[in-house]
């Protein structure tokens, strides 16, 4: 009897219905019912494919809070779902066989900020197992949001990773670029300058094992 009850409880807890009700509860009173239904459906699809659900709910809540019409909220939520899908694909192509939801959500943010799937894959590859993809992509996405072009963004983050900079220093890169921009330097030049500094041996530079061998 007890075992049957346990089985029933576990089956109930695992059902996607519970997750869908959670989405509905978060959206209740914030967006029109048709948007709730759409987000429930997209969230169920996303969860089934290992994608994060929270960005979808957040975008719908944001649309409701800003007084955006239902059809535009629905379109924006669909756009986020597509970005999550693209980010997961790019991360897998970058060598992360099963990326976690945090990395996927941040990858979607980076795509929205202006990076492409190719750059997401490159950054995932550059970070390898030593760096959290979520942190790497958070930094890259913020740099892109500052106006740093995709190529310079990848170059700067990759240089910092090669130099072995800790995550806290990586997270400080956007502020350093912003400080340069405040002095009148263009975002691309600011990022390029910081990338050169990260690569130079006097500024930490790459570890000896990664430096190219000297030619005679």
């Amino acid at each position, binding site marked *: 009897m007890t075992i049957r009850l346990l*089985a029933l409880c576990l*089956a109930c807890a695992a059902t996607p219905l519970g997750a869908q009700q959670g989405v509905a509860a978060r959206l209740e009173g914030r967006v029109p019912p048709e948007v709730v239904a759409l987000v429930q459906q997209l969230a169920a699809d996303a969860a089934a494919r290992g994608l994060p659900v929270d960005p979808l709910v957040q975008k719908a809540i944001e649309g409701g809070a800003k007084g955006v019409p239902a059809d535009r909220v629905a379109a924006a939520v669909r756009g986020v779902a597509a970005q999550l899908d693209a980010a997961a694909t790019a991360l897998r192509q970058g060598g992360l066989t099963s990326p976690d939801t945090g990395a996927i959500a941040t990858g979607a943010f980076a795509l929205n900020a202006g990076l492409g799937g190719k750059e997401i894959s490159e950054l995932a590859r550059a970070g390898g197992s030593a760096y959290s993809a979520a942190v790497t992509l958070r930094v890259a996405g913020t740099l892109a949001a500052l106006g740093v072009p995709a190529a310079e963004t990848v170059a700067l983050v990759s240089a910092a990773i090669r130099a072995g900079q800790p995550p806290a220093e990586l997270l400080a890169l956007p502020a350093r670029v912003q400080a340069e921009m405040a002095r009148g330097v263009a975002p691309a030049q600011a990022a390029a300058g910081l990338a050169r500094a990260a690569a130079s041996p006097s500024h930490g530079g790459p570890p000896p094992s990664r430096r190219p061998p000297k030619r005679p």
Partner: protein
Amino acid sequence: MTDFHPHVKRLIDGELALADLPPELRAEGEEALRLLAAVDRRPVVLSAAVDARVMAIVRRRAAVPSLWRRLVQPRDVRLRLRPWILAPALAAAAALILLLGRTAPQPAAAPVTVRFVLFAPQAQQVAVAGTFNQWDAAATPLVRTRTPGMWAATLQLPAGQHQYAFVVDGARWVPDPSAPAVDDGFGRRNSVMAL
């Protein structure tokens, strides 16, 4: 009943030793100890009536066990495992673990103190809304600072990436001019911070 001298009574109670008694009371003390020892060694014999009464009560209680005794009484338990019952439970547990493992948030890092500042001299009220407060335009108001026209609020936010905007006079959504921004999908811009 023998009426002992108070000192001898104290000897019986163990408060005094025999050597503590005055010489004229020692004989009385020895007699009292002898009697006490005899009483101590005498076997206790209960009457047959007491035996019968006690055993009757025990039998009655054994015949009708109380609910509490049924619960706490040790007994043999035979556990039969039926695979066809366990299989759905194990499958559901595995699904639950997989679901939780995939959607579980990262371990919470230490919160970061963030100061939001906006220069809005014409505003009557300013708030900040974003992913950290469910985009609630009333949840986090900014207060006027000593600098005229300047509004500010200091928050503790979890590490991570946050999007936000200022809400001026409850209706106008304004991106933070000092922060990077991205398209919000609704034709406006959201400010971004990476903590």
